[in-house]
């Protein structure tokens, strides 16, 4: 990777000096240098792609009333000068029709941080990556199998942030992830089984995932699903696998607590939220077993939402969104914190690359409960176990949803019995979370990664983390797809 070390400081000084001379109220500068690699095997076709990108994003507040943002991937003095002037010009224009901007205080930070990595994924040969993927997809062959797919994704990101307030922050990140998917065709149509995990770690994650050992089990499942009976419709207790709970948290807790969305700034594209400010501290969002944190601190684990500072220089924090079922907090920015009476942002401004930072999920996680997974099953008299997401739909306020899973099992008298295909469930967010009476313990808790959360106009793709363990929900509307 061509390093951006040193370049960030020089360009930031150039940009922030111009902003200061032009009387900007506030300015910040980010230089982001990224490297990505994707290695894919689909059936017998292999491909790899590597991308290198570097650019700068400059944000200016003018007259205390107007924001402007400009970005460029030409990281030379002339371009940074022009881009800063463009951001200033947009901010000046906005200031003429804008109203006073609130901007929560944040201490000045001068720091350096790197995400922990044991094995740099870019030091591992492409041959080794292909070998692992081909071995995995090779184990997915069988009568009725129509697609075998394996993919690995790796990224490194160097970020330098500097603000007119004096913050100077270097952060380096490494991300790794892998996915396997197999599809079979048979009497019940096309059925898919898959597994995926993405974290802020090195190639040691891929080693631990041991994809070739997962492949035969996924294949067996897919072939069984094409002959399985459809999940029946009705009301039932359900146990969701940890990866499905993670997505449920993302969609029905993570998105509705984005404060920009709540305040209407995403109404045109993403929608609004049922978690309006008058509900804060009042709404019983879930049962007392439900504790959801917004936690970007490294202590939470190496998630896709882990960092030391967000993209407006706010230090990462752990805050509760839901505490013992009560709705108590939002994902915020310096610009929005005061709108809900907070004196400080909890550090949730994130940008894809060097684009404009917006409020995004960090690690939004369901804290572990006190149930051993086997005990949850044994304690369930009549219900369904649903495993791994296969699509969903949720309304623009994140209130009314339905999720489908790849596979399910009938549970009778505490034991897992026959497989069912196309299991799905529907619910109203607070009713659903209030029906949660058992959350798996720390042993079954995994910090899952979502690498593709879309938001904003123009759309940005963000990586987010979601810790979750299997959980049980009582008397839920279930159906078969």
């Amino acid at each position, binding site marked *: 990777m061509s390093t951006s070390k040193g370049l960030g400081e020089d360009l930031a000084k150039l940009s922030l000096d111009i902003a200061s001379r032009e009387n900007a109220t506030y300015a910040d500068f980010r230089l982001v240098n990224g490297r990505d690699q994707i290695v894919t095997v689909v059936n017998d076709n292999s491909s790899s792609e590597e991308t290198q990108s570097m650019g700068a994003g400059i944000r200016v507040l003018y007259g205390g009333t107007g924001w402007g943002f400009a*970005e460029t991937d030409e990281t030379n003095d002339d371009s940074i000068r022009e881009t800063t002037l463009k951001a200033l010009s947009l901010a000046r224009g906005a200031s003429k029709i804008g109203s006073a901007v609130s901007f929560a205080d944040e201490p000045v930070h001068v720091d350096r941080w790197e995400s922990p990595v044991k094995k740099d994924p870019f030091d591992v040969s492409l*041959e080794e990556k292909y070998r692992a993927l081909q071995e995995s997809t090779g184990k997915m062959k069988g009568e009725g199998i129509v697609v075998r797919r394996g993919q690995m994704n790796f990224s490194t990101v160097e970020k330098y942030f500097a603000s007119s307030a004096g913050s100077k922050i270097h952060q380096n990140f490494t991300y790794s992830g892998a996915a396997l998917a197999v599809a079979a065709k048979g009497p019940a149509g096309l059925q898919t089984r898959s597994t995926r995990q993405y974290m802020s770690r090195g190639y040691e994650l891929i080693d631990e995932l041991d994809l070739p050992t997962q492949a035969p089990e996924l294949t067996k499942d897919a072939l069984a699903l094409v002959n399985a009976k459809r999940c029946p419709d009705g009301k039932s207790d359900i146990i969701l696998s940890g990866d499905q709970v993670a997505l449920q948290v993302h969609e029905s807790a993570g998105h509705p607590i984005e404060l920009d969305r709540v305040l209407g700034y995403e109404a045109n594209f993403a929608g609004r939220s049922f978690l309006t400010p008058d509900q804060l501290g009042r709404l019983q969002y879930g049962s007392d077993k439900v504790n959801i944190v917004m936690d970007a601190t490294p202590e939470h684990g190496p998630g896709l939402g882990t960092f030391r500072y967000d993209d407006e220089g706010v230090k990462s924090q752990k805050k509760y969104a839901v505490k013992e079922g009560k709705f108590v907090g939002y994902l915020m920015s310096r610009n929005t914190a005061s709108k809900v009476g907070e004196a400080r942002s909890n550090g949730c401004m994130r940008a894809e690359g060097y684009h404009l930072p917006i409020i995004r999920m960090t690690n939004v996680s369901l804290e572990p409960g006190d149930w051993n997974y086997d005990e949850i099953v044994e304690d369930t008299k009549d219900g369904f176990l649903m495993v791994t997401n296969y699509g969903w739909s949720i309304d623009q306020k994140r209130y009314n949803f339905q999720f489908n899973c790849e596979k399910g099992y009938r549970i009778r008298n505490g034991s897992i019995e026959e497989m069912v295909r196309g299991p799905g469930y529907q619910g109203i967010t607070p009713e659903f979370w209030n029906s949660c009476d058992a959350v798996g313990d720390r042993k079954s808790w995994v910090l899952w990664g979502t690498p593709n959360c879309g938001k904003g106009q123009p759309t940005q793709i963000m990586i987010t983390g979601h810790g979750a363990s299997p959980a049980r929900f009582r008397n839920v509307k279930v159906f078969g797809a």
Partner: protein
Amino acid sequence: MDMAQKMMQPDSLLKERAHELFRTVKDAAREADGIEITLTTGQSENLRFGNNELGQSQFGKSRNLSIRLTLDKRQARATTGRLEKSLVEKTVEKALSQARTSPQDPDHLPMLEAQRYHGLDRYHERTLTEPAEQKAAHIGFAIDLARKNGLLASGVLGTNVGNVWILNSVGLEANYKGTNGFYSLTMDADNGNQTGYALSTFADIRELDAGKVAETALERARLNKNQGETLPGKYDVVVDPYAWSETLFFLTVSATAGYAPDFGMRQYKEGRSYLSGRLGEKIMGDNISIEDDAYHPLQTGPSFDGE
């Protein structure tokens, strides 16, 4: 000259740059039996607004060089945003290294030879030079209209200009320069329980009727007030064009195929598409025809794909 206009490179320089980059790649990739470069540059400006006030205005400039190399039925792609000669050479080395270590592709096809493309006129200078004050006035009109009617206006007015150059080692050369933009607007009330949406897309910003967009959003929001409950059942349904365009997207692209097109030949052949094995079969009513037409007068973007 407007700053946005000043920040764009003239066409002749871009062509020269594309050829110079191709020469650099060719010199560095002598081992490859097929070489293709795609140079894309772009510039965008977006004015965002929400809650009846202007939000964050954004400007962006980007350029990107993607290099595809083939070597004995092996293929690799490496992309960089940095166009200095030494870094382009490093990118070629990365692509070569990937190609050398990739398994052979049994479905490998040679690179496409020189093609003839119909001319397209999708570049409109005004889209690039429209003064920010004029764009702000469009938004101001919508916000005023929303306020007068007790609604909140949110949306974005975005304009883009893009250039693409593709050159390959068997003589293909394709280029495109075009502008496009969109104005999308929501007017809502009662925390989103009453909403109206409108969208206009254009290549030439002079075709944007911002007043009509605002009136449409308002009219829809008015119609959407005090919604009653609709019980599940069978009904005749009139599908709004915006809703239909979303539906069409999900008809053509599905999670079943791994977010690949269900109309794609690979998905079709592998049996992953719901259309697999149904070519020639009547699957919709007589009144439904779906076509793929890069030359449609309302279409924006190039008339060639990434190969």
